[in-house]
């Protein structure tokens, strides 16, 4: 299935791209998608920060199951204000 992936801030810079469409197997979770992305973009691999995950603009847990055309964002530590 096709998933819209968004990278922001430091992750966008590491991935070198802000938005990609990724094809993953049916039944994949957010954690599965993240693993696939780390394989594709090795610079994403260092686990040096606490990541949050958002699906369709809501925070979810990494075991959240994805559906066709979901919009997934990987959210590095926020620092607004």
């Amino acid at each position: 299935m096709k998933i819209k992936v968004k990278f922001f801030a430091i992750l966008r810079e590491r991935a070198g791209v802000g938005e990609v469409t990724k094809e993953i197997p049916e039944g994949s979770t957010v954690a599965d998608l993240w693993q696939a992305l780390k394989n594709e973009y090795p610079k994403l691999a260092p686990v040096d920060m606490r990541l949050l995950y958002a699906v369709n603009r809501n925070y979810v847990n990494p075991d959240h199951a994805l559906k066709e055309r979901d919009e997934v964002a990987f959210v590095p530590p926020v620092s607004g204000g």
Partner: protein
Amino acid sequence: MFRVVREPINLQELVTYVTHPSAGAIATFIGTTRNNNEGRKVIALDYEAYPEMAEKELARIGEEAKRNWKIERMAITHRIGPVQITEPSVIIAVSAAHRDDAFQACRFAIEEIKKTVPIWKKEVFEGGEVWIGTQTGQPLAGR
């Protein structure tokens, strides 16, 4: 009124929006770019957002504030892009019948923004730049 914008924020516009005949108090908070941080000489802050989700999260903060305190209206605008020294990056305005509710809800809003709203600031300082909050093992710098 919960917005993420690229232009300078108009304080009076937010205050006018929350002004209400049943309100005796309006509290506001304005976050501005400071010229120094942890010993670094700051040139500017450059904000990035996931705008659609950020506006949704700001509205969620407003709903939560309404449940927790007796407030009339809340407005939050966060600016993105470069924000120069002394310029506002975020403005919160809250009206309430009584001042205690206005102050508490305003304080709550800025604390929540710093915890959950998908907005990031890159600090551009003399000698480099850094995404605040993502330095390995370093806690998020307070403001």
